[in-house]
């Protein structure tokens, strides 16, 4: 595998801003009726996506969920092709066939995303099996939310990953809400990492508001996987600042809770951290401005692209 140079702090901030700017743009376009479909945004969860992917090489595999714009961007996906896909354009990653929930950017190791909760975890195990079988040095990551913890394939996968010592890192983005209800309405278990210990899978719970803490935790897990130590479980405590999907008023959340999480906003927090460690405020502002410009350009180009071509609709069902 191609070891990639570790991201600098400013590059990490830049990725987070790219995601934030991208997601806000999607929200804006959705509100304006320029993109359609079922859109799930991960604003507030950038620390998890960027922290995790900062620990990975380009050739490592990532499997996403219905809420995976952030994961794809963190892994290095092309913004214009991504936006084009979400907007149903022929130039999108999947030629408009996948949309927001089924992103794929294999050239940067973002294999696929699923609209079925926990549906991607077995897939990630399979990619890890490929690495083992071919004696490749790649690690697979499956992102999933806390809602996946109540589903059968999640538990089946923990067993099989442990049994076969697969090089897979299970990254649980525990944002405390399963669709529209608090996790406590779905299970008596508060920390999904507890399940991992049943199978002797090393597990750690980290603060998703701290991007470097996520990166360090995942780095340890990735090193373990590359070293033949099998799977790891990283539970990232995080929060989505938007509703379950665009259009969800999210009335199930209290105002104080929202305010608290806004204070913990991983992007602003990391920017503060960099400012405190001596990075000049203007260069931090430049990072945000550059991200917003890139996103604006990508969105403009994507929306100017032609819509998906009906003539191609029967293609790609079979090779």
């Amino acid at each position, binding site marked *: 595998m191609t070891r990639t140079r570790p991201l600098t702090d400013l590059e990490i901030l830049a990725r987070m801003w790219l995601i934030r700017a991208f997601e806000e743009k999607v929200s804006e376009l959705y509100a304006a009726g320029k993109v359609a479909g079922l859109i799930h945004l991960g604003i507030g969860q950038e620390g998890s996506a960027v922290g995790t992917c900062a620990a990975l090489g380009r050739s490592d595999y990532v499997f996403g969920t219905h809420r995976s714009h952030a994961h794809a961007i963190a892994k290095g996906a092309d913004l214009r092709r991504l936006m084009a896909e979400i907007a149903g354009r022929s130039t999108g990653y999947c030629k408009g066939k996948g949309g927001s929930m089924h992103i*794929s950017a294999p050239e940067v190791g973002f294999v696929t995303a699923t609209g079925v909760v926990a549906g991607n975890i077995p897939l990630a*195990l399979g990619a890890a099996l490929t690495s083992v079988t071919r004696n490749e040095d790649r690690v697979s990551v499956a992102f999933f939310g806390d809602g996946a913890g109540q589903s059968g394939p999640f538990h089946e996968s923990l067993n099989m990953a442990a049994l076969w010592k697969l090089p897979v890192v299970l990254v649980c983005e525990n944002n405390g809400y399963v669709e529209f209800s608090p996790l406590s309405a779905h299970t008596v278990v508060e920390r999904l990492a507890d399940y991992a210990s049943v199978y002797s899978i090393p597990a750690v719970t980290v603060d998703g508001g701290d991007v470097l803490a996520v990166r360090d935790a995942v780095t340890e897990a990735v090193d373990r996987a590359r070293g033949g130590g099998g799977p790891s479980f990283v539970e990232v405590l995080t929060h989505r600042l938007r509703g379950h999907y665009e259009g969800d008023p999210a009335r199930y959340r209290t105002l104080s809770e929202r305010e608290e999480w806004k204070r913990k906003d991983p992007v602003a927090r990391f920017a503060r951290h960099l400012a405190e460690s001596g990075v000049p405020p203007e260069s931090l502002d430049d990072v945000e401005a550059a991200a917003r410009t890139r996103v604006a350009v990508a969105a403009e180009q994507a929306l100017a692209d032609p819509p998906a071509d009906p003539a191609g609709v029967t293609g790609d*069902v079979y090779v």
Partner: protein
Amino acid sequence: MAARIRYIEAVRQGLQSSMRSDPSVIVLGEDVRYGGPFGATKGLADEFGKGRILDTPISEATVMGMATGAAATGLRPIVEIMFVDFATLAMDQLVNHAAKLGFMTGGLLRVPLTVRVQGGVSGRFGAHHSQSLEAWFLHTPGLKVVAPAFPGDAARLLEVAIADDNPVVYMEHRGLYWTKGEVTGNEPASGSVVRRRGDHVTIVSYSRMVHHALAAADTLAADGIGCEVIDLRWLAPLDLEPAVASLRRTGRAVVAHEAVTTGGVGAEVVARLQAARGIRTRAPIARVGAPFAPVGAAPELEDAFVPGSGDIVGAVRGLLGEAPPRTDGQKGGRT
């Protein structure tokens, strides 16, 4: 003279030759290291090692998903589902993931996956171990489906399925496992084949029902009725050209399968044949299939359930006006 071997041995040989020629082929399934319940993987662990013959937990959903993920990233996995009935546990991964990944990604990913399933009525196994569920797989765009009836096809089409870059459901009939036949290696890779020539009625079938169709043709030949028997082999893609050509000559057709008639493959074949031929057949195309009921465990009930050569003979005679026409191809029950 080619060797005559059992169907199950042909399956084993198909697996073996594919694994020999392509190191990316792996097998996942319950107890496969020990040969599986019917011996399809016997000896393969010795030859190819535990790294390529993987014994899985009883976790059909995750095993199917893992194989899909492995297929999308460069392996050519074969999943053994011990009974097709248990494919229900893996349906989400099969239908929502394996079948759709290639399309959803606009062709960025490919899923060269083979799913071996074993099913059909044989041995009084009851309602959870006797089903024929191919219509579900046909109804899932993105899946290919193959159902060989003879050892030669069993070996050859398994190799073809494994080499295919699409997910293929490879359907084995438990009741055929101990039947013998020639394996030449020259069996055609695609399409349906004419197993017997005849001028009066076309019988379209697949899997074990082909044997019943041939037996029915023998019976009817004694009365001077010539049946053309077509073995579809591949259900998806479905090659009806030989059937259409035959129907053009005979003007009459029976579609026979072991699965429940309602919503079955027969309906699709009838709809296509009617559309292809207009309605210029001499009689309606008859369906022979299982009645609208689960499989009863009792021998008498199982026998009453499973369609056989007698049902095909009856349907053919019905088309020829020698008996009251069977209007709905069913033995009763609600639809």
